[in-house]
């Protein structure tokens, strides 16, 4: 709790802080690129050309945006309630497994029944998984920072067990479910690409989250509880209820991300469903200032970085892991913005000292 409040308190208000952090991260990234002997302009151009310059590139970026944005929205809602839920990764896996199981079991049902059933079961599974941490916090005061991250490992291994056992495709050798029938898949929006309807789910979810936070009384209470629990209590608000809503919303949205990966991308539940979307989404939520539309924009940016990274490596010879460095730098600049004037101050003093030294030797 304390650590998370410290982080949130340091978040600069508004868009300017996020834009500044991204620009600063790209600047440092440029220096690193130059250090390996490549022109930063060439490298960045290759990166964004690959991510945004073609229909297919843009489609891939949008496909990657979906899980980042859904998990990011969930984490943002939890943050708003003062809940530092870092368990989106595990909640995504549990949701994906539920969606996969229902999708396989319900094969033969029409799409209009099957897809909502898969989505709903994924959301329920994700929310239930997050609910474990909620109960641990509300009943036993266990810090959710610890419990949610531990539950990630439990979830991933539990899902792995299920895929090796009960959920395994009886006709296959790999630890994965059977392939979903076409009725269990999200429709493709743009022929010739992988762009699926999950991006529409993202937009609807962002609009609903925005309305919830700013127009609904429950959203108002959630924000008040996140900002000042004691004042919320004093005003007669049900603090535990708001905290619970924060946990459940995060789990449901991360579960939905699992559903969308299963039904939109993999077309079955697999062992390595996510390369850490649930963790990257924490940065996405922070960069988006925990505002729903900001989160979607941040998810798009990070998706573009990840999609463009491989092309940048092959075209410009810059290791693709540079984008991971840039993502990390964004967090550092977001959190450490207060320190920038201090650094300026230190540089000025260093300059003074050098000048004095210069005078002495002269």
């Amino acid at each position, binding site marked *: 709790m304390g650590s998370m409040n410290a982080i949130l308190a340091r978040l600069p208000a508004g868009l300017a802080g996020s834009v500044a952090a991204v620009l600063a991260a790209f600047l440092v990234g440029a220096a690193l690129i130059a250090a390996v002997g490549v022109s930063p302009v060439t490298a960045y151009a290759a990166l964004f050309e690959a991510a945004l310059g073609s229909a297919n590139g843009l489609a891939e970026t949008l496909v990657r945006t979906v899980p980042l944005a859904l998990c990011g929205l969930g984490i943002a809602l939890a943050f708003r309630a003062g809940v530092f839920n870092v368990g989106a990764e595990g909640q995504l896996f549990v949701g994906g497994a539920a969606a996969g199981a229902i999708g396989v079991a319900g094969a033969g049902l029409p799409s209009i029944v099957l897809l909502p059933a898969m989505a709903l079961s994924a959301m329920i599974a994700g929310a239930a998984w997050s609910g474990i941490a909620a109960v641990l916090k509300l009943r036993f005061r266990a810090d959710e920072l610890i419990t949610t991250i531990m539950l990630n490992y439990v979830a991933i291994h539990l899902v792995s067990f299920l895929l090796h056992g009960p959920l395994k495709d009886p006709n296959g050798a790999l630890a994965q479910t059977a392939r979903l029938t076409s009725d269990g898949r999200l429709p493709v929006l743009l022929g010739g690409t992988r762009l699926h309807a999950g991006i529409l789910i993202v937009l609807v979810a962002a609009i609903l989250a925005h309305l919830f936070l700013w127009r609904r009384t429950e959203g108002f209470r959630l924000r*008040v509880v996140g900002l000042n629990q*004691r004042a919320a*209590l*004093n005003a*007669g608000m049900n603090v535990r209820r708001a905290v619970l809503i924060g946990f459940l919303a995060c789990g449901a949205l991360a579960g939905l991300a699992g559903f969308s990966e299963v039904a939109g991308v993999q077309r079955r539940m697999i062992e390595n469903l996510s390369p850490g979307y649930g963790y990257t989404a924490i940065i996405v939520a922070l960069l988006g200032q925990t505002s729903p539309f900001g989160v979607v924009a941040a998810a798009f940016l990070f998706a573009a970085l990840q999609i463009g990274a491989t092309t940048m490596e092959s075209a410009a010879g810059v290791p693709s892991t540079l984008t991971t460095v840039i993502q990390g730098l964004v967090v550092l600049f977001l959190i450490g913005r207060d320190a920038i004037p201090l650094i300026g*101050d230190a540089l000025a003093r260093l300059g003074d000292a050098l000048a004095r030294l210069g005078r002495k030797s002269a």
Partner: protein
Amino acid sequence: MRGIRVAFGPVVANDDVDLQVAAGEIHALLGENGAGKSTLMRVLAGLIVPVAGEVRIDGAVEPLGSPHEAMRLGIGMVHQHFMLVPTLTVAENVCLGLPSTGRFLPDLKAAGRRIRDLASRHSLEIDPDARIADLSVAGRQRVEILKALFRGARILILDEPTAVLTPQETEGLFRILRALAAAGTAIIFISHKLNEVMALTETITVLRQGRVAATLRTADTDARALARLMVGADVRLPTLEDERAAAPHDDGKSNAAARTILAVSGLVCRDADGVARVDGASLEVGAGEIVGLAGVDGNGQQELAEAIVGLRAAEAGRIAISGEDVTRASVARRIALGLAHIPEDRHHTALVEPLAIRDNIALERIGEPPLSRRGWIDRKAVARLAAEVMAAFDIRASGPGQTAGTLSGGNQQKIVLGRALSRDPSLVVAVQPARGLDVGATAFVHRQLLARRAAGAGVLLVSTELDEILALSDRILVVYKGRIVGAMARRDISVERLGLMMAGKAA
């Protein structure tokens, strides 16, 4: 300091201000909230660069651009909100950021010795190895003073230092300050408490609306004249007598038969360590009366108030509001029964500081029409309520969208009062409602409490300021070690007996 002018956008906080302080002098900077006292001192501490004017230290003009520069020139400031790291020890806090104690591995032992030295020289009781979190408020303040002295302060600025202290602690602080002045330190004492300024200082500069209203010797003036200079007109705090004079049938006896609004019996509350902070307290508040709960700070009055409003669980005993047992009821239920709480802690309990004024005003009523219907917030209705309350309670801000945390203490308290009292409550629990406020704002708060009494509400006034209790209460109860040890009707009040009861000596 000469001709100082500071402007924030179109707002001029200081205009052509002159201030002269001599070594060994205790100089008061007096003024209402927003008069520009803190701004002027922030200039001196190097935190703000003025647009015009100059600062001379020992006759030389100094460009004060940064806190480092101010420190180098021997200017130290003790802020109203302490700048200490609670998890570190006294020595660590004092050395924080000082290269002289070693850049990477500070020599805390040597520093501790120097701190002990310095502390004993100025008779400041401080253990350098104590953790800040374990110190009392007065202790932390001594650490702040020591921190300034350790950095070589010859000019010590104290911003409202007594706002957080009990009367006894205030006396202790004054002894320290007098000793420091006698040793040659120039002390600037920022305050709006007239009696303290009269008791402590030699020279007084009164600021009003960013300008110097007067500079005079303390010996040549009195509290009344100072109040006039501060406010620009005669002010007197309202008392119950004024109220009775205005309403001749109000003789204080009719209240005896009034129905009971609040009944507390045998209440016990323990803190985290199992110590009974409230130990079998019983009291009643009737409609149309103000009951003052007097007592020295730390005798359980805060805990008692918290239990009544629902922020603290009662271990034993019973609390009833308007006849309904609320001992285990939610805060929401108590509010629905007509409870209004004016908490002691504005920053953490009363307000959500990062939120707008309008949201803070809507805080308790967001779930009811007209502010919301079926869970949808009606923003226009919220704006209307905010506009009404801001007008009725004279909340001065750039608009209802301004963040509550950026307002002055007086305006913040008006939000709290406005939110609680505009609901037409039947029970008001007001804890230190005028703490940290200037004369004008205090008078406003007191008038509002008297108005609720006149409207038939029961008011429980919890305060460690005896003047406040004496001015407003129909009846006075005294709390000592978690029990109500005495009661006194207004006509029988004797300050001497009150004092004895507050000290735990049965009267």
